[in-house]
């Protein structure tokens, strides 16, 4: 258990525990997938069907092409637009801010203040800003627009991006940047031609977390959008009615939403831990 050699009993025990945990962790995802492949009628029976008898893609076809709730392709695109814009803007502006704060050109007091400000913002429970932000957006006539939600998502990902990227920038060798300066780069050229290309692993991790956040975010999306800029999580929540639960449709949409995240994040498994810790624990 401490990176030292183990007895066979311990190994077997570990295998058993790991297997149980994997089953507990994975079973709900399995259930999500098979429920989406069942007719709703098969979801209401007891005992539950662990292996669907009648497999159908009806739920997928329904939500994609025949939904009464409106055109799902549109909401899918909304989610895509908002998520990609959020990732792009928060990576660009966040890493710019992080670069500025990781250098010593501004006074240490000022940089400390900025970092504390960013940290405090990371801590804000989103509901505390969501309501006044909604009122302000409605004054600017930005409710139910892509821009309104993007601004809010970017602002939410910025603190995270800034903290994570500062860590990456500080770990870059100082001499490379000096060399770039001597080679004639100004601040911007040094940032875009040297620092950014060298920080791609860091940017990838931050992008994944930005994706995870913006793609799955529900509270702000539900408050700030109603129809034009509605995203997938809001659509799913909308399936819930008091009378009837459309398990098939809800889970099918759930699967469609989850797959891109799993695919996208499987590219950077190892680096994700860095993101989980908000850059605070050095590996």
């Amino acid at each position, binding site marked *: 258990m401490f990176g030292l050699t183990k007895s066979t009993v311990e190994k077997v025990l570990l295998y058993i525990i790991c297997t149980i945990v994997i089953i507990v962790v994975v079973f709900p995802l399995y259930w999500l997938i098979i429920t989406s492949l069942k007719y709703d009628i098969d979801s209401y029976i007891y*005992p539950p069907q662990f292996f669907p008898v009648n497999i159908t893609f009806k739920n997928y076809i329904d939500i994609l092409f025949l939904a009464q709730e409106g055109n799902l392709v549109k909401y899918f695109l909304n989610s895509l637009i908002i998520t990609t814009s959020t990732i792009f803007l928060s990576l660009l502006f966040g890493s710019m801010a992080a670069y500025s704060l990781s250098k010593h050109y501004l006074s240490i007091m000022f940089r400390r203040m900025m970092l504390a400000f960013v940290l405090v913002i990371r801590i804000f429970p989103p509901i505390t800003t969501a309501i006044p932000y909604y009122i302000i957006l409605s004054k600017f006539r930005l409710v139910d627009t892509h821009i309104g939600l993007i601004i809010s998502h970017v602002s939410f990902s910025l603190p995270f991006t800034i903290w994570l990227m500062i860590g990456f920038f500080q770990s870059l060798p100082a001499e490379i940047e000096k060399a770039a300066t001597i080679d004639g780069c100004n601040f911007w050229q040094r940032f875009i031609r040297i620092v950014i290309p060298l920080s791609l692993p860091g940017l990838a991790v931050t992008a994944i977390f930005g994706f995870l956040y913006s793609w799955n975010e529900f*509270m702000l999306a539900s408050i700030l959008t109603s129809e034009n800029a509605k995203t997938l999580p809001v659509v799913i929540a909308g399936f819930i009615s008091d009378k009837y639960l459309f398990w098939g449709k809800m889970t099918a949409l759930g699967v469609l939403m*989850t797959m891109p995240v799993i695919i996208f994040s499987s590219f950077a498994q190892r680096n994700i831990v860095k993101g*989980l810790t908000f850059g605070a624990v050095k590996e």
Partner: protein
Amino acid sequence: MLTGYRKWSIIFLLPSCLFLIFAYVYPMVYSFIMSFFSYSMLIPGAKPVFTGINNYLSIFNNLAFLNSLRITFIFSIVAIFFQFIIGLFLALAMSANLRITGVFRVFMFIPLMIAPVVVGILWRNLYHASYGVINFFISFLGIPPQTWLGSATQALPAVIVVEIWQQLPVFAFILAAGIASIPTELNKAALVDGCGRMRIFWHITLPLLKPAIIVAFLLRIIDTLRMFDIVYTMTQGGPGTATKFLSLHIYEKGLRFFDIGAAAAQSWFFLIIVLLIEIYFIRLILSRGTAR
């Protein structure tokens, strides 16, 4: 020449600052002002009426709010406690470096990838009183079917289980990273000195993990206190107010009843509590100087 760099540094900070000012500072200032007014958006043409600290005072005899506060803290404390215990155990298992731990690491991420709204729906199905899988499983243990989300006493624990399930990887991976950063020489030296496994754990692993543990606690507290998405689709705060977390309470106050002044005061109250807790933890981290 440094002045040129200083100018660039400010320019680089500017876009982020504008975003944060527009999405945080401005709303919070607005909300701070509104917290001293009585203002309902439901009544057409109603003007805000200045009521001083009335909104804040009424928090203390607002039973619904206090109930939400209580639920939120119970939820946060219980969920984090179990996440910590199980997470630590899993982190130790992961550091064993067997073949299965590699597989384990890959699968552990899955719950984090699923959107909380989807998680809520999914578990709502699993918990279902008449055809839920969970009732099916416990029937093997001789336990009769439970109503779970329909029960005022079982709903909160049920939500806690879901929270533990989804966010367990955070603790497990942060602690695993912490364990990985402990030099193996230390363990070897302790073994040579004749320490048993348990003593190594108590006297070496755990103390050295402290910074990682504090960071993980900080992050989990931030996230559990703002719990919203899962309960929104799983219970919508019910039954009754059994799972009406603070975020949900304020959400309804502001956007269902449009009692903007009261919602603002409650938001600020909530924020200050959260800030006080977090500042305590951040100071803990900074004073140890082990994390940035």
